[in-house]
């Protein structure tokens, strides 16, 4: 073999190697692109019916923390939790529950949280009632029996934080004209999102549903102040005393309208 031939061969083999590497890199990059988009989609908010276990970090951080080991599932005495199969909308292998099927019973000793090795369920959540898995909302006010004027009250009675997380607020029944509506009203300050109300709703399909906080909560403008709260904080009104003008009623014998008769 001449020197030139050897060189040619070395050149060809280097070329083959580079081409091969480029091919592999391209294939992997293409696959990575697909996986990346899939992953990005999975890391969006959970489907509306799926709740994370108590103490779960917010969804973005949860997906970097949870190793999908299922130890929380094993620890839950009520078989509330389950791991998402790959065809489900919840990120593959991560734990969640569906309130209408089995709600969270808010165990005071937090078995799921203490079982979690990864910190995906925040171990600093020592008071289970501080969990915020979602928020209950009476979604269908047209079907809720209490909105219709009956005294169902079942969701209210099933709430572990009765009269704190959910209350019955009296309103006038305009349909009958003489009765009271007892409106189930959820208070986000206390609602843990355990889902007991949704589970217990007597309707064919629950009128009250627990949904992710991002879905349930609105947000006031950062600069908004509620006058009455500011007032109680300051101990006095923040605006100067208003002139209280006398209410004006039609004055029939006003000199401006001498001819007017009702």
């Amino acid at each position, binding site marked *: 073999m001449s020197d030139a031939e050897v060189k040619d061969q070395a050149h060809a083999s280097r070329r083959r190697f580079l081409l*091969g*590497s480029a*091919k*592999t*890199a391209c*294939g*992997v*990059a293409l*696959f*990575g692109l697909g*996986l*990346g988009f*899939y*992953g*990005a989609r*999975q*890391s969006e908010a959970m489907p509306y019916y799926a709740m994370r276990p108590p103490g779960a970090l917010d969804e*973005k*951080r949860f*997906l*970097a*923390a*949870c*190793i*999908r*080991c*299922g*130890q929380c*599932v*094993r620890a839950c005495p009520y078989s509330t939790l*389950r*791991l998402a*199969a*790959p*065809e*489900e909308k919840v*990120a*593959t*292998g991560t734990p969640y529950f569906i309130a209408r099927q089995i709600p969270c019973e808010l165990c005071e000793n937090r078995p799921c949280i203490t079982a979690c*090795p*990864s*910190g995906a369920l925040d*171990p600093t959540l020592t008071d289970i009632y501080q969990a915020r898995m979602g928020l209950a909302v009476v979604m269908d006010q047209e079907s809720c029996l209490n909105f219709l004027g009956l005294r169902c009250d079942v969701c209210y009675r099933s709430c572990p934080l009765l009269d704190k997380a959910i209350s019955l607020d009296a309103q006038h029944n305009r349909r009958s004209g003489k009765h009271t509506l007892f409106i189930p009203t959820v208070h986000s300050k206390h609602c843990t999102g355990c889902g007991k109300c949704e589970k217990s709703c007597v309707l064919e399909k629950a009128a009250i549903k627990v949904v992710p906080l991002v879905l349930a909560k609105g947000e006031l403008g950062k600069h908004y102040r509620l006058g009455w709260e500011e007032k109680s904080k300051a101990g006095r009104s923040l605006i100067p005393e208003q002139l209280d003008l006398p209410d004006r009623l039609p004055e029939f014998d006003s000199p401006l309208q001498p001819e007017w008769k009702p």
Partner: protein
Amino acid sequence: MTDSKEIGALAISRKGWLRSHQWLLLRRTVQVVILLLFLAGPLTGVWLLKGSLAGSRFLDLVPLHDPYIQLQGLVGGHVPTTTVLIGVLLVGGFYLLVGGRVYCSWVCPVNMITDAAAWLRRRLAIEEGMRLARSTRYWLMGMVLLLSALLGMIVWELLNPITMLYRGLLFGMGMAWLIPVAIFFFDLLVAKHGWCGHLCPVGSFYSLLALGSPLRVRANGRQECIKCQDCYAVCPEPQVISPALNGAEQGRGPVILSANCTNCGRCIDICAEGVFSFGSRFHNQ
């Protein structure tokens, strides 16, 4: 390959069926026993290993954690807990000693599927098929880490057939069985040793833990080799054998040093001449 005889026939006639399958049998036993340790809890209520291959607790006490998953979490921005660190050290330390890809051949459930595909492929004499580069898996491993960092999540767990299969068996299968089935047919019909030998990023991560592991397969009896090629036929990473088996002239020692040797011991079983044995990486002349 001997064309007149079946692969391994010589070893069986020389050593008997049992001794020419001993490491294979032991390996299958270990794989199944590990699965049973997990299954005992849900089936009988006796909790030995709680959790899954991604992370578990042995006897409700000793944490065991997969290092590759934790690495993805770490680059994704989650700092591991002390429990997890202990688990990673225990698991990682073990594989540093026995060779990382012992995970592949002695623990991983997908290995049973790809071994079965490779066996059937030999039986049906299906030719090699699509040629992937063996290095593809390292590209994939790196890509997964990059994506984990970019997306801030443990990315490979969205697809990982290993943990998906385990979760399926332990927590309910759903459609997860489709993935191992797909891998079986990929290995059988598309690419020889396709998944474990070319693509799996988990195996390629574990191979990094084998770079200095003391436990290795040695071809101490290489001068007895009759060039029947049976070891190449059964080895899932046949490229690792040659340097040790044929390297005497180039002054290479008899130890199979490649980190991709899975320490499965199939070559030990299949060799009629007793060329191979488990040993240490030291005294390699």
